[in-house]
């Protein structure tokens, strides 16, 4: 058993919490992977910022229709019951709270629910896309992420050091080591890898973990 979940396993875990019939927006990149792991018998309906509800997987290579793309500009297909709409209607869905779940990647997430996932600072060309709308859009805003950065620093912190995407918006974090809710501006541990001690997990977390009496075992299948 590995000492951390792979990205696919984190995505798998996040997918288990999505109910049948939920309306879901998956951020560009890593979060898109969540769509692959819907539990049998459940079918979420995926929204993309550029104006499609109920799109499906990518078409076979060579069969792309470049007028049928998602927000990551990747070719997609339609599922039965799909709808097109313009950008203002699309973000009315987002901002109006009509999505059940938004799942985003992140650089940092703080115990007060603040999210920083759009800018690594003043260098380079800034680009925000739909992130600042999505964090206020869904009934549930979840983050999927490695628990620590590539050089081992915590991504779950007391206060974000990078430019914020949104204030107090995240409610659940799925990491490579744990599932953590944000409640009353605290990180509340819900599940952790069984082989990992609480002390080890706390050492890799940049803010105090509240540990309830009962926590679950974070176990993902080999993918």
């Amino acid at each position, binding site marked *: 058993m590995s000492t951390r979940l792979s990205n696919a396993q984190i995505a798998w875990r996040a997918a288990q919490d999505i109910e049948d019939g939920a309306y879901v927006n998956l951020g560009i990149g890593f979060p898109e992977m969540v769509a692959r792991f819907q539990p049998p018998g459940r079918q979420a*309906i995926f929204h993309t910022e550029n104006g499609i509800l*109920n799109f499906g997987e990518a078409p076979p290579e060579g069969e792309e229709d470049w007028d049928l793309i998602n927000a990551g500009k990747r070719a997609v297909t339609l599922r*039965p019951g799909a*709808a097109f709409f313009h950008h203002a209607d699309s973000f*009315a869905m987002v*901002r109006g709270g009509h999505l059940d779940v938004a799942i985003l990647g992140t650089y940092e997430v703080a115990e007060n629910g603040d999210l920083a996932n759009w800018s690594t600072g003043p260098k380079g060309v800034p680009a925000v896309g739909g992130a600042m709308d999505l964090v206020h859009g869904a009934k549930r805003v979840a983050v999927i992420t490695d628990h620590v950065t590539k050089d081992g620093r915590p991504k779950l912190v007391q206060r974000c050091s990078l430019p914020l995407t949104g204030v107090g918006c995240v409610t659940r974090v799925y990491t490579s080591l744990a599932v953590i809710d944000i409640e009353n501006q605290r990180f509340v541990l819900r599940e952790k890898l069984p082989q990992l001690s609480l002390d080890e997990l706390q050492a890799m977390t940049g803010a105090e973990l509240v540990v309830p009496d009962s926590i679950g075992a974070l176990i993902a299948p080999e993918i």
Partner: protein
Amino acid sequence: MDKTVDSLATAVARVEDGMVVMIGGFGGAGAPIELIHALIDRFVATGSPGKLTVVNNNAGNGRIGIAAMIDAGMVAKMVCSFPRSSDPRAFTERYQAGEIALELVPQGTLAERIRAGGAGIPAFYTPSSYGTDLAVGKPVAEFDGRMYVQERWLKADVALIKAELADRQGNLTYRKAARNFSPLMAAAAGFTVVQATRVVEPGSIDAEQVITPGLFVDAIVEVANPQQEEALIRAGVAYP
């Protein structure tokens, strides 16, 4: 996922005392007569739901639909732009007796407030009503040398609307000018109930032609031969 329900009574079961209910339609076009009458049936049988705030462009006509709700005594307040009709007596009598409240809103402002409610826009500025009695007490602001009135979003607990086609996921089309306020109300309500003239399978409505995407819809009941409010009024029908 299948949002259809098997009866009008089930469809309107979410409406409770004191709720804000948006009802689609402009004149007879788009009035969900069967949903409204199902609500009246429940009120007559159980005394609930009462004390409702109803949002519609008008305030009922004749003795059916919203007018019949008012006659039944279910409506505490109307939010509308034009509480007149060919036969406005139901509202007029209650209003003049002080038994029903009225929030009068310019029609375009009413549409935009509902749109804002669905779109997560808590407030916006409009030139409409600036300097008039309907702007009294509202914040005003100047932009680019012109004065505007701040208006707030309008949301509802439940919306009752009439569609032409509905697929089981809730994607809707409307018939001609029966569209009017309904797509806006579907988005502005916490729970949206649709009576559709025909329920079809997902994929039957071209994705390009969906007017209200399914995520705005919560319950669908098929009413295959819906009554037309204007025709009922011209026939002098009263409900119940």
